[in-house]
């Protein structure tokens, strides 16, 4: 029986928050939702939107590549594939959904595995039937494992081995992380780990992590909250499996000196990658760091683009971004060198820009610009129904679903001095792992 005590309702209204005539801030429409938790621990969030004929179900499982055994990597992602290979009562996931006029997809990263489907709202029951059955138990067919192993191996080749610059992540991660599971990519450390995955391994993984109290479900669209809560109890309530959360991720020791790796590949141009240890998505420092990387490389008004690409012509492209991971992450600066430019020249110029942001506060104009960009991106991301569902599930994982409506405030509060402070801490040489990825030609 679900308890209706935890209903949280925020009405949809325009919220003029700190609006000033110098146009520094904009406003946003609040996303209304209700939330409850079933007796088996499954968190259920509902966002009503009767302007659409669709409904979407997003289920976020709190398991990702960081939960893998170092000798059995690539599992969380392989597992995501297996989730479509049939469950206890349903031989195949996709066909009934397609028959209902629906579509679906999923993704895995180092922290989570997320499944989402969209279908005509009148067929919502089909979505509940499919998702609850596969949370209850998979069919675990050997044929499905054999095929998906092959498929994932082809994915490994297509995205990481057969593409120019494709294996950068596989090299950079173990350079930056010596202890923490972030040292391997979601796809896995190597193909052999996937080849050796057994049905027993797969079953253990499922029963351990795919529990209702280790998941967050968000239903959005032309639905009615009370009805959805009732359906959630009907379909998911009998899944009693509980997650034993004795996870302890090894803490990455503070890096004390710079690290470097040089490799050669069959690629036309040299490229440079610098990874620096940074905050996690949950830390309060995250917001200043996010704005900092935007000042450096978001769009054509950004510093690295204008100085290193346009003015000095040392890089043909350059980017600086944070990992946004749930444990302590990294901020990476990467770029492709213009032919003829030496690695020394490129690194000196990049260092000069990093020194600037470590020593001089960003201008008012820059700060306002990146804050406006963040808000604008948030508003645009709310247009799509499945985007809203995903954002609500993630915000709930971060501790409060209402962050979808309030997180923008944390960005607004960031000061130029805070950004300088973060830059000083992050862009230290002893905090840096550098990959020189050189052209063999």
């Amino acid at each position: 029986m679900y308890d209706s005590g935890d209903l949280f309702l925020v009405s949809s209204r325009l919220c003029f928050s700190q609006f000033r005539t110098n146009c520094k801030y904009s406003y946003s429409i609040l996303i209304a939702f209700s939330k409850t938790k079933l007796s088996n621990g499954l968190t259920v969030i509902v966002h009503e939107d009767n302007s659409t004929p669709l409904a979407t179900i997003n289920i976020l499982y709190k398991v990702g590549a960081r939960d893998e055994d170092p000798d059995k990597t690539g599992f969380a992602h392989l597992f995501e594939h297996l989730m479509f290979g049939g469950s206890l009562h349903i031989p195949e996931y996709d066909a009934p959904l397609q028959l209902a006029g629906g579509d679906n997809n999923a993704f895995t990263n180092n922290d989570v595995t997320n499944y989402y489907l969209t279908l005509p709202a009148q067929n919502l029951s089909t979505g509940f039937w499919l998702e609850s059955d596969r949370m209850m138990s998979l069919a675990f067919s050997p044929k499905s494992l054999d095929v998906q192993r092959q498929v994932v191996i082809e994915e490994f080749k297509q995205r990481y081995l057969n593409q120019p610059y494709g294996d950068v992540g596989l090299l950079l991660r173990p350079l930056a992380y010596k202890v923490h599971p972030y040292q391997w990519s979601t796809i896995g450390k190597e193909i052999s780990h996937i080849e050796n995955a057994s049905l027993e391994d797969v079953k253990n993984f499922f029963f351990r992590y795919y529990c209702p109290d280790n998941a967050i479900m968000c239903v959005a669209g032309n639905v009615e909250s009370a009805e959805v809560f009732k359906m959630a109890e009907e379909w998911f309530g009998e899944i009693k499996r509980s997650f034993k959360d004795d996870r302890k991720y090894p803490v990455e020791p503070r890096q004390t000196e710079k690290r470097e790796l040089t490799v050669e590949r069959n690629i036309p141009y040299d490229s440079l990658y610098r990874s620096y240890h940074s905050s996690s998505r949950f830390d309060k420092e995250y917001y200043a760091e996010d704005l900092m990387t935007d000042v450096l490389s978001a769009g054509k008004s950004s510093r690295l683009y204008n100085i290193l690409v346009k003015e000095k012509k040392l890089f043909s492209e350059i980017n600086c971004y944070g990992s946004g991971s749930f444990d302590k992450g990294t901020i990476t600066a990467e770029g492709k060198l213009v032919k003829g430019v030496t690695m020394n020249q490129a690194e000196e110029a990049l260092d000069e820009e990093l020194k600037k942001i470590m020593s001089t506060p960003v201008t008012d104009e820059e700060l306002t610009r990146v804050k406006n960009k963040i808000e604008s991106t948030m508003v645009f991301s709310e247009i799509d129904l499945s985007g809203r569902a995903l954002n609500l599930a993630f915000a709930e994982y971060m501790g409060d679903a209402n962050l979808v409506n309030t997180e923008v405030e944390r960005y607004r509060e960031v000061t130029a001095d805070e950004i300088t402070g973060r830059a000083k801490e992050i862009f230290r040489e002893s905090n840096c792992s550098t990959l020189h990825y050189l052209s063999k030609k």
Partner: protein
Amino acid sequence: MAQELISRNIPPALKSITDFSFRHIERTMLDNGIPVYFMNAGVQEVIKLELIFRNPTFNPAQPLLYNAANRLMSEGTSKHSAQQLAEMVDYFGAYYETEQSTDNCSVVLHTLNKHLASTLPVIHEIITDASFPEKELSVYKQNNKQRLAVENEKVGSVARRKFSEIIFGPQHSYGYFTQPADYDKLEQAALKSFHRSHYVSNHCTIIVSGSVTVDVIRTINNILGKQDWMKGNGASTPSLKFEPVSQKINYIEKENAIQSAIRIGKPMFNKTHPDYAGLQVLNTLLGGYFGSRLMKNIREDKGYTYGIGSAVVSMIQGGYFFIASEVGSDVSSNALEEIYKEIGLLSTEAVPGDELQMVKNYMLGSFLKSIDGPFNLGDRWKGIMLYDLGYDYYDRYINTVKSITVDEIMQLAQKYFQKDSLYELVVGKK
């Protein structure tokens, strides 16, 4: 208790979609004659404004001219540098993009309503006063040549572009395979002159979607509706014939490729043709969704690939059909065999009724998604506007999807999917 009401052994009863209605575009005109099509929908106070300019006649001697002009407009005007222009738009959290497609080049602005009046003047300045500074042009050339060299290392990218050359012909705008030297042909004078004659008010169509209030229309008219836009001679783009190569089977070897990219297909008609909607149903069955024949065989049964799909694409001068995949090199021949087998089956064996029903339901559900939200609604208009079709196009499309029979599907396969009419390209290792 609750458990008695549900059954896990049978799927919940399905309810069919009955309502396919959606909001239609409204139209107005700016003072200088530019037509504006607008879609006022959605709750978010956002605007997407697109200025569309139809591509001129393609000249193989200057193959990058109109795409480069579109890309480089924002790189400087007589009043502002590229960086200043970017800052003026970015300051308000707005996004400005240029888009080049086979038939059109566009300038697209995404902004919160609040900042339309501040950001639109920048767009106006870029369109009417672009100066194509020499230093920006040289950076553009250098960096794009590098980007092209990297793209040429990707089997999938080479296959996509080479395949177009094979089926449309090397001299057609749809098929032209860009070479690094083509960037060197770009010159400031030619770009400026082209820009002056092409980016004129009577070549322009505007589509705006989002929270399109009366205020928004007024702002657009104030900023883009003046007479300071020049007028051109309004010449239209003639359609050129496709000239596919004579060789049906093509292979480009790439050393050390552990995967090969496969493309199979042919030039076709566009969405104005009466068989187009039926062909879309046939295509979906073959390779247009996750449960398709190609996915089920080549990925889910054999594990040869991470992904395989097919599409029927419509463009103004005609369209094309293609199947695409990247498969393990060691199974390239096997994959080809299976693909042709699946194509062949469609001509010889009637598709089971329940499988066809699944394809139909999937397509109708997919259509519902495509009419959800202001930007999708704007795109639905764009999809018919460019072909001078009316909204009844969608009624006919829905009707075809709902009513097409198993026999009609087979007939379409026999008519259009004969193996000897198809072109094949493999890039990688066989």
